[in-house]
């Protein structure tokens, strides 16, 4: 942050806030990898209804929709996967938390930009996430692995003296099978898009019941310049004066909605 008029105590406040927001973001990644989604929403998301979670495929545009998609549907998918896997590998019955039997979504965090508002009540963060998704025991009876390079934009707010998420926007740029030549340019690099052939044995992220359908962002294409999404955080005074990562992009920008 660039404001040099802040007192030492105010700077300390912002250093603590930035460190805390980074921790929340890492905790999100760890919870997501384990499929621990319901706890994530309860522990470090806002209690407000007007929170959002966005991906290329659309936006969960309020708390109810977010819980429905990110917790309820994911848990239902886990049950479905478990029922398909257990006849093949009975040993999975000993797994206590079956939510991770879907896959491990290992979204790593790198290259953070974190801006804390001058009023200390909100913060914005941007990360690259060079990640991957893998599974060992699954209905396909074969290991699966996929690279997935994305960008995270997060709005945090200070709520009852605790930093929590308000909005999280995920922009997927590249995805492809591990490990193949020129994987960003493989035909299935647009994994989150909904127009490809579906594997009926596996829940498809494009099937989630988002309140606002996408696309809100587009994967790498040889006919497209790099997209500035999520927007790069800039120093700001109050959340009302800056943009929100809930802002609809992609098709909505093009249609002027």
């Amino acid at each position, binding site marked *: 942050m660039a404001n040099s008029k802040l007192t030492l105590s105010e700077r300390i406040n912002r250093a*603590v806030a930035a460190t805390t927001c980074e921790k929340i973001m890492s905790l999100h990644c760890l919870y997501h990898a384990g499929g621990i989604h319901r706890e994530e929403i309860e522990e470090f998301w806002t209690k407000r209804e007007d929170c959002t979670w966005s991906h290329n495929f659309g936006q969960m545009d309020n708390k109810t929709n977010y819980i429905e998609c990110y917790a309820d549907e994911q848990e239902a998918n886990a049950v479905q996967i478990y029922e398909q896997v257990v006849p093949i590998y009975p040993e999975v019955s000993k797994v206590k938390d079956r939510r991770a039997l879907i896959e491990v979504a290992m979204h790593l965090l790198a290259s953070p930009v974190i801006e804390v508002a001058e009023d200390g009540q909100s913060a914005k963060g941007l990360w690259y996430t060079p990640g991957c998704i893998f599974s060992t025991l699954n209905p396909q009876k074969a290991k699966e692995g996929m690279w997935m390079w994305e960008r995270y934009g997060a709005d945090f707010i200070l709520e009852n003296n605790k930093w929590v998420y308000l909005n999280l926007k995920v922009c997927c740029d590249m995805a492809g099978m591990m490990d193949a030549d020129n994987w960003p340019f493989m035909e299935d690099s647009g994994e989150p898009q909904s127009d490809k052939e579906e594997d009926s044995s596996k829940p498809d992220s494009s099937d989630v019941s988002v309140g606002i359908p996408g696309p809100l962002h587009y994967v790498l294409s040889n006919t497209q310049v790099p997209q500035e999404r999520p927007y790069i955080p800039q120093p700001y005074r109050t959340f009302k004066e800056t943009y929100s990562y809930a802002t609809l992009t992609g098709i909505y920008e093009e249609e002027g909605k």
Partner: protein
Amino acid sequence: MTKQVMTDDVRIGRVWDILEIKNLMGRHAYYHAYDMHAEELDELWVQKPENQKSASFGQNWGYQVGMGIIRKNYVDLNIKWHQEDLDKLCDADPSLENCPENLGIGSMLMHILSTPYIEIAGDGQTAQGMWYSPGQVTFAYPDKVNALWMYEKYAVDFIKEDGEWKIWHLFVGTDFILGVGEDMTKQPVSDTPVPDQEPEGMDITIPMQAYTSRYNWSPYPAIPRPYETFGETISNGPEGHQELQKGGKD
């Protein structure tokens, strides 16, 4: 951690602790890449005898406990492996000099640290951290160069010795290893990411399957939670492993 009003000094001290721990682990990553294992143990790991005794290095196949055995494996055995590799390379290429300066020739290890999550104990004397590590390891052999992706989870306990953070318990759980250009779907499902048993020649204090990605996500090591003193959290040493807590092992 109990909610209490903290002074600015205390609050910035905790932010500073996190920065120091990030640097400490960053140094570990570079020391490891540069084969500075002896320096790493002397500079970055615990030095007080009572902490050295309980220091541990855990991997998928179990735990090394105590700095003596850690040094034997991490320093001495590593040099032995490098010497064996160099001997083979020199046999294949007589122009290559077989000297200590060439140990590790052709190899490159990068265990990158990402996704840092660090909890400082309420009493400020210990800390716990977790990182995802997207890495690559490359080794040269007389007939080929072998390059592998290696994705791991790091879980680490730190303790302050005379005001400096030191590595106390290091656990590295390997999720998968994949040849660069290898199709993961062709790996047999029965293959574990690393052998169930420790590499030949490595002494292990507690051999066990401490970590596996067979069921995808491993709940061990535990994600750090806020805590007041080390006694009330789950150690990343062997005493914190659920199988050992039950009095048995896999």
